[in-house]
């Protein structure tokens, strides 16, 4: 198998001189899912955005399908890469169907084909087209919106899917549902996926490789099992920090719930 995406010594510094990516090199095999893990500010989103040239690296090279994306036609490059972000960015003035069918529309596909494709994709992401195709984004729940975002990213049948904290804004139950749906979908579709997340469990569940970033550098690039069993101090520190964070969040949540039930109890 060849590399669908390859980072070669990728560097990025802001105009003010802050270094966000500091010589990143690794490759992502075609049809595999790679999770990029890291804390806020580790550079993971910046790295993801170099793939479809939403950000132009200040050094090094990003190869997509073996070709440097520097010389690529940026519009064609982007149309061939699916993009899913936490905020979904659905077009509020388009129906669900038109949101999903937008890239095919840009590619000049006939209207009937687009409609059919949209409806197929809605089915694929677990939304009943009869019920949802004509709705507007403001008539959807957070999870449903994210499903539409995913369907839209798949519309032009891209080989590569970039996902930036796709389920980060969802409640734990919905998130788990979405992860199941995505895993099932990826098993069938064999896309090359670059998934940015800070959620270790999500990375372990969905990814074939886990890349850990710290201050713009790759500190680990391992399979999920090796990652969990790694004796690398930085990997262990991340795992510990993640679980501690989960615990703190869990406690906060139960306190909130207690608080809420107290408040409810005190009401006449």
């Amino acid at each position, binding site marked *: 198998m060849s590399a669908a995406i390859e980072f070669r010594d990728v560097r990025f510094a802001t105009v003010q001189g802050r270094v966000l990516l500091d010589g990143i090199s690794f490759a992502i095999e075609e049809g595999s899912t790679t999770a990029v893990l890291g804390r806020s500010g580790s550079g993971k989103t910046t790295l993801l955005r170099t793939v*479809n040239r*939403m950000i132009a690296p200040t050094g090094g090279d990003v190869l997509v399908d073996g070709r440097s994306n520097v010389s690529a036609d*940026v*519009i*064609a*490059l*982007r*149309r*061939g*890469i699916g*993009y899913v*972000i936490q*905020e*979904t*960015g*659905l*077009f*509020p*003035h388009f129906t669900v169907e038109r949101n999903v069918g*937008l*890239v095919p529309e*840009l590619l000049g596909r006939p209207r009937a084909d687009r409609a059919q494709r949209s409806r197929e994709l809605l089915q694929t992401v677990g939304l009943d087209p009869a019920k949802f195709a004509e709705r*507007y984004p*403001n008539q959807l729940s957070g999870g449903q919106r994210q499903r539409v975002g995913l369907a*839209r990213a798949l519309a032009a049948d891209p080989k590569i899917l*970039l996902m930036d904290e796709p389920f980060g804004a969802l409640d734990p139950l919905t998130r788990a549902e979405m992860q199941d749906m995505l895993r099932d979908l990826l098993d069938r579709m064999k896309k090359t996926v670059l998934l940015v997340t800070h959620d270790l469990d999500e990375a372990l569940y969905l990814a074939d490789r886990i890349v850990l970033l710290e201050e713009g550098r790759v500190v680990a690039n391992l399979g999920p099992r090796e990652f969990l069993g790694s004796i690398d101090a930085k990997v262990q520190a991340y795992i510990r920090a993640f679980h501690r964070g989960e615990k703190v969040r869990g406690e906060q949540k139960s306190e909130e719930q207690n608080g809420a039930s107290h408040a409810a109890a005190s009401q006449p």
Partner: protein
Amino acid sequence: MSAGFFAQYGGEIAELTVEHLWLTGAAMLFATSIAVPVGVALTRSPHWARPVMGVANILQTIPSLAMFGFLLPLPWLGERAARIAIVALIAYALLPILRNTYAGIQGIDAAVIEVANALGLTGMQRLFKVELPLAASFILAGLRTATVTCVGIATIAAAVGAGGLGELIFRGVASVDNRLVLAGAIPAAALALIADSALGLFERWFKVRAA
């Protein structure tokens, strides 16, 4: 007002109303075709927003009679009163349209713009498929403010002989004939109210679609 009054002035009122509409309409057409593209351009280079908006703001602040006064001695412009009137009205209409076009586009959810770019929309596709539709209700609100302002200021254009309903008002004041004043004032006020509610309807229609 008696039937005799209408028999005497009805034709003139209608004529001046049409003239008033023509002055306002022409000015709005020019102002929109200047301010919307400039507003869009400013979203592309926001560092120009402040100075350009500042100039429009100064134009807006000049008292209307003074504005007509400034334009009167200019060559070509000064030759015809209607030209002066239209140019002055354009100057007043620019700021609301410009400001609302700029703010409407700048106010679009950043994630929507991000995705529009990431999906591979060209600049023009992004503008026409995403930005203008989503900013439409804002831009229309600017047009509404500008139109109402222009209908009002157009009455003053009669002072330089540009016609419009102001002519009846000025003539009425000069001849101490309240009926004549009202014959100009009532249609002018009605025009402003009609323009306001008609454009307001459009604005709401676009807003519902974008919600």
